[in-house]
């Protein structure tokens, strides 16, 4: 073989302060081949919506929506499913996928031998998770429009709303993943998201519960996401939505801070 070592080239690489977008680029390349798997995640909430729309809705009739206005049952549940899909997309991304890369593949250790920093990874991965959540929720809202479940122009605001949901859950999911030791611990993820999905005012207004349980349900982050999106898709604005948005924002910021600190401690021993 007459191959020589690679030639020396000059002026290679630059130092830019912010490069979290490189993580997106990485994930984009990796997901190009897996788009079917990602895309199939979109169907679950749609199946639920059909089930509610054609079946359960007829049993329930109208329910009282935000501000006590009666709305069809499907229109009531749809924004909740939209919030849940943003949650699920973000949580799957930052728990299962990240755990594999973190614990088994040591992908991040390699990345940190380049100019990338732990914060780039944390911000990049949370941002990507949020994107996946938003992908689900924004395609979902198209289904809602087609089914006539939202007529207000305010519904467009549900997309930035689901960005907040994705951010909050993606950040907390990433923080949680840094504490996970084995695959068994992922049962805890299901144990957290499943009750949230069922009891956050998704399928009926919280007032069917006794006041004490209502209070518990209101701590659920998904409840805040659901209420925020419901206000937008049903076209009823209310100052409490500001509280819901703030809750999600603060939750996301705390999660991101913990995730960043933990990743740094884990990867730079």
């Amino acid at each position, binding site marked *: 073989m007459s*191959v020589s070592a690679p030639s020396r080239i000059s002026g290679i690489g630059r130092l830019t302060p912010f490069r979290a977008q490189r993580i997106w680029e990485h994930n984009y390349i990796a997901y190009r081949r897996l788009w079917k798997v990602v895309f199939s995640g979109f169907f679950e909430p749609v199946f639920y919506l059909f089930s509610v729309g054609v079946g359960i809705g007829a049993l329930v009739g109208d329910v009282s929506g935000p501000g006590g206005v009666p709305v069809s049952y499907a229109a009531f549940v749809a924004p909740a499913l939209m919030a849940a899909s943003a949650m699920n997309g973000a949580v799957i991304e930052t728990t299962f996928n990240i755990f594999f890369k973190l614990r088994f593949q040591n992908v991040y250790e390699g990345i940190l031998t380049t100019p990338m920093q732990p914060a780039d990874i944390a911000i990049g991965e949370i941002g990507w998770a949020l994107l996946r959540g938003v992908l689900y929720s924004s395609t979902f809202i198209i289904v809602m429009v087609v089914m006539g479940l939202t007529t207000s122009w305010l519904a467009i605001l549900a997309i930035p709303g689901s960005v907040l949901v994705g951010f909050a859950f993606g950040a907390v999911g990433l923080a949680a993943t840094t504490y996970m030791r084995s695959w068994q611990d992922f049962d805890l993820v299901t144990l957290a998201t499943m009750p949230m999905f069922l009891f956050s005012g998704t399928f009926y207004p919280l007032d069917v519960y006794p006041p004490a349980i209502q209070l518990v349900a209101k701590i659920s982050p998904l409840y805040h996401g659901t209420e925020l999106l419901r206000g937008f898709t049903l076209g009823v604005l209310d100052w409490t939505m500001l509280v819901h948005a703030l809750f999600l924002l603060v939750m996301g910021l705390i999660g991101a801070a913990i995730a960043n600190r933990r990743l740094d401690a884990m990867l730079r021993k």
Partner: protein
Amino acid sequence: MTDTLVEARGLTKRFDDLTAVDGIDFDIHQGEAFGFLGPNGAGKTSTMKMITTVSPITEGKLTVFGLDPTTQGRSIRQRIGVVPQEDNLDLELTVSENLYIYGRYHDMSRAEINPRITELLEFAQLSDRRDSTVEPLSGGMKRRLTIARALINDPDLIILDEPTTGLDPQARHLLWDRLYRLKRDGATLIITTHYMDEAEQLCDRLVVMDQGKIVAEGSPRELIEQYAPREVLELRFDDEQRDDAVIKMDGVAARSEVLADRVLLYTDDADDTQRALHDRGVHPEQVLVRRSTLEDVFLRLTGRRLID
């Protein structure tokens, strides 16, 4: 000194109550291949991690390119290439994508990266695997890809942690050949290894590490000359005869080591020593004469073998 790329003085790394690296000093110069030889747990990998700025220094002084790893880690990492002990290739990406994304981590443009990928794949003898996924590659191919990945940013310093551990002999020689080419073309290499043959093959200069400390320093030849006589007689005995033979052999060679499976005699002239053994009535089952190696140096310095 302009040609010193890495300088360490009293460099120390402690994890809770374990001192992994215990106040070591070394200088690594432009254009040399510098080795850290030692058994597992000697502190080699911890030292590498401090140089690559992924592990904070506990005590002492370390500069890389004259920069401080604590505050200028990013600028240092921009100029180094790292081949870790365990492959951490991205299994979700293809061979060329693995190179591409590392180029992007270094903020290189697509136009800069693509010709480089072609060049590096040729260097790593992986051109025909360009679009293959990483999973089915052999251990040797994965290592070569990891080395190619470390070269994407044309680093001034290449750090290889146990580059051939776990590879079969053929794959090792192929890899050594690639590293030799890099060296020939002026690259600065830092190599850790617990294989003496690897250190002898690749390193211009090396330090021997044991339990966090540097116990010797020099070129492979210097170390062998300094710490081990020229030749080694390896003797095997029947279990019953052994103890008796050990007593009889006392003083026959410059130095001897009694190992679990054999006895090593260090001598400047193996023929002389063999005659002396015969005269003393020592008749080993098996005799092997060889040149001294770094393994013998290590045995001399620590009383233990490199590989258990």
